[in-house]
C-alpha cells in the first residue's frame, strides 16, 4: 500500500502585526513644507527689508557743503533815557519823606501777625477722678 505522503501544506506566512509607522519625509519634502508655512513669508519679507536697507544705506559721494557765513551783529546797548529831576527832588523834605517811606515799607514787611509767643497754654482741665 502506498502510504500517502502527507505533505503539510506550507505554513502560511505569518505577517507580523506591525503598526502603521508613518514614513519620515525626505529632506526636500521637509523644506517644501517649511516654505509653505506663513512664518517663512514673514522671514522672507524681513530679509528683503534688511538687504534693501544695506544696499541703499551706502551713500553716493556728494559734493562738499558750502559754509554759509553767519552774520555777526554788533551789540549796541539801549541808551537810558535821561530824565530831568524835578525841583522838589533836591529838597530835604522830599529826601527825608522818601527815606521814611522806605523804612515803613521794610517794617510792614517784617511785621508778624501771628506771634507764637502769645499762644495760650494747653491745659488738661478735668481731673479725671470718677464721680461718686
Amino acid at each position, binding site marked *: 500500500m502506498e502510504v500517502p505522503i502527507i505533505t503539510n501544506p506550507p505554513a502560511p506566512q505569518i505577517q507580523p502585526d506591525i503598526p502603521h509607522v508613518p514614513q519620515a519625509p525626505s529632506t526636500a519634502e521637509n523644506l517644501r513644507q517649511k516654505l509653505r508655512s506663513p512664518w517663512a513669508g514673514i522671514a522672507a519679507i524681513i530679509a528683503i527689508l534688511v538687504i534693501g536697507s544695506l544696499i541703499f544705506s551706502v551713500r553716493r559721494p556728494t559734493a562738499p557743503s558750502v559754509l554759509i557765513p553767519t552774520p555777526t551783529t554788533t551789540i549796541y546797548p539801549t541808551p537810558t533815557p535821561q*530824565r530831568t529831576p524835578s*525841583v522838589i527832588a533836591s529838597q530835604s523834605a522830599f529826601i527825608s519823606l522818601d527815606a521814611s*517811606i522806605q523804612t515803613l515799607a521794610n517794617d510792614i514787611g517784617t511785621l508778624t501777625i501771628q506771634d507764637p*509767643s502769645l499762644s495760650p497754654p494747653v491745659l488738661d482741665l478735668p481731673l479725671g477722678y*470718677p464721680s461718686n
Partner: protein
Amino acid sequence: MRIFLSFVFIFIAFLALPLLLALPAHATSQQAYQDYLYQFDLYRQTNTDFQVAKNEYLKFKSLTSQATALIKTKTMLAQRNELLRAYLFLLNEKLNEDRGLAGTEKQLYQTLIANEVTFLDAHKDRMSSIGSIDDTVTVSRELESHYMILYASMRQTVIGIMMGDLAVLTQRFDTAHSAAQSLVNISRGTFTPQKQATLDRWLLQIANKRSLYQQKIETIRSTNNQLKGNYQEEIDRNFQTMQKDAAEAKQYLSEGTSNLMELMNAVRYQD
C-alpha cells in the same frame, strides 16, 4: 587816712542808695515770657506726677496711694493756677509796651486781664481748704466752668495786641501820606497837567487802600468785642478768622505804602 576814706565811701553810698531805690523795676515782656516758659515747664512736670499718682490710686485704691494722689493733685492745681497767672502777666506786659492802641482800648483789655487775675487769686485761696480728692474735683470744676470766659479774654487781648502793632505802622503811614499830599499840592504848578493827573491818580489809589485797610480793622474790632463761645474750638475758629483779616489788612497797608513809593518816584522827575 583810712578811716577818712571809709567814711567818705559810706557817705557816698548813703547818698546813692535813695536814687537806686527810686528807680522803678519794670518787668519787660521778655522777662515775663521767660517766667511764663518756666511756669509751663513746672506745670508739665507736676501734671505728669499727678497723672501717675492718680492712675496708681485708681488702680490700687490704697490709703497710701490716695494720700499721694491728693498731694500731687493739689500741687498740680496750684501750678496750673500759677501758669495761667504768668500768661496773663505776659499779656499785660505786652499791653504796657504797646504804643498803637488808644487809651480806652488798652484799658479795656487790661480790665479783662485784671478780672481774670482776681478770679485766679480767689481760686488759689480755695485750694487751701482742700482736704480730700472730692474737694480737688470741686475746686477744679470751678476753673473748668469759668475757663471759656478766661480763654475768650485771653484771645481778645491777643487780638488787641496785634491791632496795636498794626496801629503803630498805620500812624506812620498816615503821616507819610499826609506829607506826600502836601508835597504834591505845593508843587502843583511845576508839573505838566498830564503829570499832575498821574500824581492825583496815585493819591486816589493810596486813599482807596487806606480805606480798605480801615474796613478790615473795623471788622476785626467788631468781632473781637463779641468774642465768646461755649467751646474752645468755636473761640479758636473766630480767632483764626480775625487773624486772617489782620493779614489782609496788613496787605492793604503794604500796597498803600508801595503806591506811596511810586508817587515819590513820579514826583522825583519833571516828566
